């Protein structure tokens, strides 16, 4: 069942996408050999359109020619298929597993839209609202971390798990926004546990290496902001 050759596993993605980063972190933690196919910014390849006709979005994992879409669904798939390689990404305890899933949904529903809302919101007022929402979500995640980690460095305990990947993949963009906006989203005073967690995540050889450099993301953000202002909204 585990892939051995390069051609069995492909990942359609883009270097700057935090959703793609989730899939890459999982693949790397599980030591899966895969081919990374970079989508060009602004266009969608034939393979992407064919593999994900419903959403036409990256990441798409293609395993033995079968596509799997949606980043956290991909992460679970990787954990279930490459079960004997590397530590488990999902907790063993079923309640902890459910907590990981619950908070991953929360991150996607509440935190991520607020994070990108700070850049894309059309008015200053909307930006301020997005910022409030982002900070409030991180406060809840800070509390959750306290309960779920049980004193260990990650949501997953001693090793990086499903929920660490869900949030950790966004650390590049979190740092980029902090730099561009001149304030801390992860604040040592308000979210000390998450600050320590973020450092552990970024220092992790496998996971940290996937997070793009802050300067490159800042550069990209500026290019995107300019495009966004001059062009009509596109998907």
């Amino acid at each position, binding site marked *: 069942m585990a892939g051995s050759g390069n051609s069995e596993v492909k990942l359609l993605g883009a270097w700057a996408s935090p959703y793609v980063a989730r899939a890459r972190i999982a693949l790397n933690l599980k030591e899966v050999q895969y081919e990374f196919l970079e989508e060009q910014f602004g266009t969608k390849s034939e393979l992407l359109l064919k593999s994900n006709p419903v959403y036409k979005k990256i990441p798409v994992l293609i*395993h033995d020619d079968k596509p799997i879409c949606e980043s956290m669904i991909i992460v679970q798939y990787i954990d279930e298929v490459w079960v004997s390689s590397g530590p488990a990404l999902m907790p063993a305890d079923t309640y902890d597993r*459910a907590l990981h899933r*619950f908070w991953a949904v929360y991150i996607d529903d509440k935190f991520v839209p607020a994070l990108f809302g700070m850049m894309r919101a059309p008015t200053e007022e909307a930006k301020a609202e997005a910022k409030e929402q982002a900070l409030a979500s991180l406060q809840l995640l800070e509390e959750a971390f306290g309960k779920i980690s049980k004193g260990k460095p990650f949501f997953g305990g001693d090793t990086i798990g499903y929920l660490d990947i869900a949030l950790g993949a966004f650390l590049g963009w979190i740092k980029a926004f902090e730099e561009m906006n001149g304030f801390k989203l992860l604040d040592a005073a308000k979210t000390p546990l998450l600050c320590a967690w973020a450092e552990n995540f970024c220092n992790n050889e496998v996971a940290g290496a996937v997070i793009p450099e802050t300067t490159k993301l800042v550069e990209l953000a500026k290019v995107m902001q300019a495009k966004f202002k001059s062009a009509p909204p596109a998907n």
Partner: protein
Amino acid sequence: MAEKEVKLFGMWASPFALRVEWALKLKGIEYEYVNEDIPFNKSEELLRLNPVTKKIPVLVHNGKPLAESLVILEYIDDTWTEGYSIMPEDPYDRAQARFWAKFADDKCVSATYAVFTSFGEAQQKLLQEARDAFQTLEQALSGKQFFGGDQIGYLDLAIGWFAFWMPIFEEIKNLSVVDNENAPLLKEWFARILDVDMIKTSLPPRDKICELSKQFLSGQIKR
């Protein structure tokens, strides 16, 4: 697994609470049902158990609360490993089931809500979008009796509520969202799933749902 106390905080007219009840019944799990007065009179206990989203359903097992109906479905299947199997076994099939459940909640629910609460020209456009969404969802059936295969599974539990609610909405607003033109197989599945014994005997009263839906769709009560 030794069963201790299982409590479900729900609301009699909530499709999302119904999903969880269906899963509990499939597994033969005994539970206490607490009906919440949504949305205006949520109990202190609910707010204490789910301070994050303050919504039902909330499952409490051995005193530990869980929210998000799809998360709860997987928890039930993971925890009560004997008896009925809700999730598919194969990882690819599991990924597909999760994908379509998410699609249904992200696209079909909002498309349904949008078309039935709009009017005139706007409604026509939204109607096509809703019809397209359900036509897309039909793909997940791919020639099977149920989304789960020969028996109902996770995806059937996740979207089964449409089989009951959609015809009611369509009747109230005189619109057709799921029919033989855009989604004949899905329409067949609607009939088939409502005929499953467990489902048949756990639906809320149709007349009360009609009444509530009329109020909901006319904006008298909010989501």
